[in-house]
């Protein structure tokens, strides 16, 4: 205590000044939290989470959440099984992460869900969330019975889950993606953006490192062009100019146009991250792969890429986090996301001009903060587990 806070005179001054500052901030925060009126959140919770999703179709949204939960649970089980098999084949110990471990890793998300449920006005959402948890646990348990061929090809689970997710929402007179709104649309754009931009970015990075001059020039031009402009210009392009580039009778929705814009934009950044990884792989690795007779394709897939991607996990996840944060920009060009929903709520007659932005904007910030925080913590954990920088 003395060593950390009062080792000499200027340290003591710093401690006192900062202590006073922190106490003052804490005091202001507590006073603010006590005086807060959360009526606006309770009234508008559905608007924040799902936007103007038709209320008579709301069960489809819950169904989609269940599909997503089950998919994640199955996939997690398959991933664990795969790691176990590989470790056994290599003759290594396999330590399965315990339940407390999982809770420790993801408790902020659980806490956020509980926090959200505390604003609901009926018991139904809580019960439906409990059902989701039960489905997740059941799927994880059932996942133990998955046949080995499915476990080895765990991407099948993701594809089936994706199709199921879309079908539950849209099939037989459901709700198309034009009406996917609220925080839901932030999550959908994040997941879809990552899954689409990652392969594209990978290809661009390989193109930039290609020995074919034409391919290299094209990739560099694309990457540098997109990295030189702000994302909002791409969104403006998606919202207002993309329609001019395709023949008039073949137009697609705003959601899709913005998703294309975000994917194009983020892929350029992901390409640069991957390039950093590719450059970090020693040349000897490629030569070793060639000397055992691997084809160029196999050299890339089995030797270079695994090491390259492992080396850039933090930068990659950082890019995903910034994609997640950037999804808020879609409201500027007219999509009703969480941030737009928050602004709509403060413009309602009963909440207008009462300074409630100071309540709802921090509320919205919490969702992005928790998401980003958990992602960055997972990336640090993964990095440690894969032993980056350790030999």
């Amino acid at each position, binding site marked *: 205590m003395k060593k950390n806070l009062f080792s000499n005179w200027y340290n003591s001054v710093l401690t006192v000044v900062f202590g006073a500052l922190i106490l003052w901030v804490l005091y202001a925060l507590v006073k603010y939290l006590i005086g807060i009126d959360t009526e606006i959140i309770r009234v508008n919770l559905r608007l924040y989470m799902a936007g103007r999703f038709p209320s008579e179709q709301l069960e489809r949204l819950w169904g989609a959440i269940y599909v997503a939960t089950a998919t994640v649970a199955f996939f997690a089980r398959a991933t664990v099984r795969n790691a176990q098999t590989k470790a056994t084949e290599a003759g290594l110990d396999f330590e399965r992460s315990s339940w407390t471990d999982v809770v420790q890793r993801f408790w902020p998300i659980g806490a956020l869900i509980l926090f959200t449920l505390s604003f609901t006005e009926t018991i139904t959402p809580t019960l439906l969330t409990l059902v989701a948890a039960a489905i997740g646990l059941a799927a994880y348990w059932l996942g133990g019975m998955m046949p080995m061929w499915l476990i080895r090809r765990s991407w099948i689970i993701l594809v089936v889950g994706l199709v199921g997710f879309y079908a539950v929402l849209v099939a037989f007179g459901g709700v198309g993606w034009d009406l996917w709104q609220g925080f839901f649309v932030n999550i959908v754009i994040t997941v879809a953006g990552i899954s689409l931009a990652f392969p594209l970015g990978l290809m661009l990075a390989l193109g930039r490192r290609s020995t074919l001059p034409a391919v290299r020039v094209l990739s560099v031009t694309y990457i540098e062009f997109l990295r*030189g*402009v702000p994302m909002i210009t791409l969104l*403006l*392009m998606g919202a207002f100019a993309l329609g001019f580039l395709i023949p008039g009778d073949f137009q697609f929705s705003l959601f899709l146009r913005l998703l294309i814009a975000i994917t194009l934009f983020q892929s350029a950044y992901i390409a640069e991250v991957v390039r950093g990884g590719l450059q970090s792989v020693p040349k000897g690795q490629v030569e070793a792969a060639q000397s055992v007779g691997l084809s160029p394709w196999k050299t890339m897939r089995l030797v270079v890429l695994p090491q390259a991607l492992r080396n850039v996990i933090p930068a990659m996840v950082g890019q995903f986090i910034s994609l997640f944060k950037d999804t808020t920009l879609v409201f500027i060009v007219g999509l009703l996301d969480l941030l737009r929903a928050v602004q709509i709520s403060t413009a309602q007659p009963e909440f207008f001009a009462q300074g409630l932005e100071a309540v709802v904007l921090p509320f919205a*910030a919490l969702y992005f903060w928790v998401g980003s*925080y958990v992602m960055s913590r997972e990336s640090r954990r993964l990095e440690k587990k894969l032993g980056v920088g350790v030999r």
Partner: protein
Amino acid sequence: MKRPPFWRNIRVIRVALQILAVAVVVGAFLYLGNNLRNELVEKGLPTDFSFLSQPTGVTIADSDFDPGSPVWRALLVGIKNTFLLVIVGIPFLTILGTLIGVARLSTNWLVAKAAMVYVETLRNIPPLLIILFVFNAVILQLPPPRDPATPLDWFVISNLKIMGPWLASSNGVGAFLIIFLVAVVVAVVVGIWRTRYSEQTGAHSHRVVWSLGVFAVIVLLGYFLTGRPVSISIPVLDGRVITGGFGGLGAYFAVLIALVMYTASHVAEIVRGSIQAVPKGQTEAANAIALSGFQRLRYVILPQAFRIALPPIINQYLNFAKNTSLAIAIGFAEITLVTFQAIGNGYPAPQLILLLMGAYLLFSLTISLLVNILNRRLQLVGN
């Protein structure tokens, strides 16, 4: 030896692949460009940039911009406003970020934790959300324009505009400015001379004192000789009109404060990482030759950390410049908002967005070029 068939000849394959790639891209551009022209013609919009000289119909808050002026004038005002954000923001975010980054490494537990909380909170929140918060929950809560706050009688603060004291000029200011520039040059020359002198004789250079002294003497002499052409102007409220002083719109300050705070959290992480990246042996070597704590930082650690930190920090400056486009969300008339409004007034979106992207691209590429040159100069010799 029999030659392989041409479709398995690696040279042929390489050329064919490249031709294919270029053909696909060129084809796509031709197709899209053709569509673009057809659609523009069909909607009755111009297919070239001639619309730039037509009247905008855009009004820009807090400026004497005439809505009847041509589009290109409006775009120029937008560029000027973007620059005002960038030029004022960069010094502030550098100072704040460096302070917080150093604070994170402080041995004082309280200071280090406070800095950590700042960084971890702001880094994980969308910048757009911070801008909206500062604008709605701070700036708009200030007193209304008809009854502004006037702290110290030096400032006039309302939720529309924030004004502070500034310099006002009168006759003879041109001559004074020339003398001012001469003073700067002389001060630099004196500084160089003192450095050389110190290097040759080993005596203390005292270059800061010398330079500032010479500068102050010349500027003061010039100030009185030219008849005191510069005075301090304090904003005065006259009804609803503010005269004198200097300041900007509330929206301008909202964007500035929010983005400086956000970007500083990233800069702080870079500063911390760079200081930590200086090998421990350097600290030990500095201690071994009995440098004081300040000398160790000033002459050993910081110069090396600076070399590591410079490229990523300039990257953050670029991010800051690009993020100023988020001002569109609260209606500050920088280049993106002006473009947006021009599109709203019926001018063709594809050309306008192309111009907008071109402006940002020109700026980014210029900075990248400078950074590359700088990097080459900063590279360690022998590495």
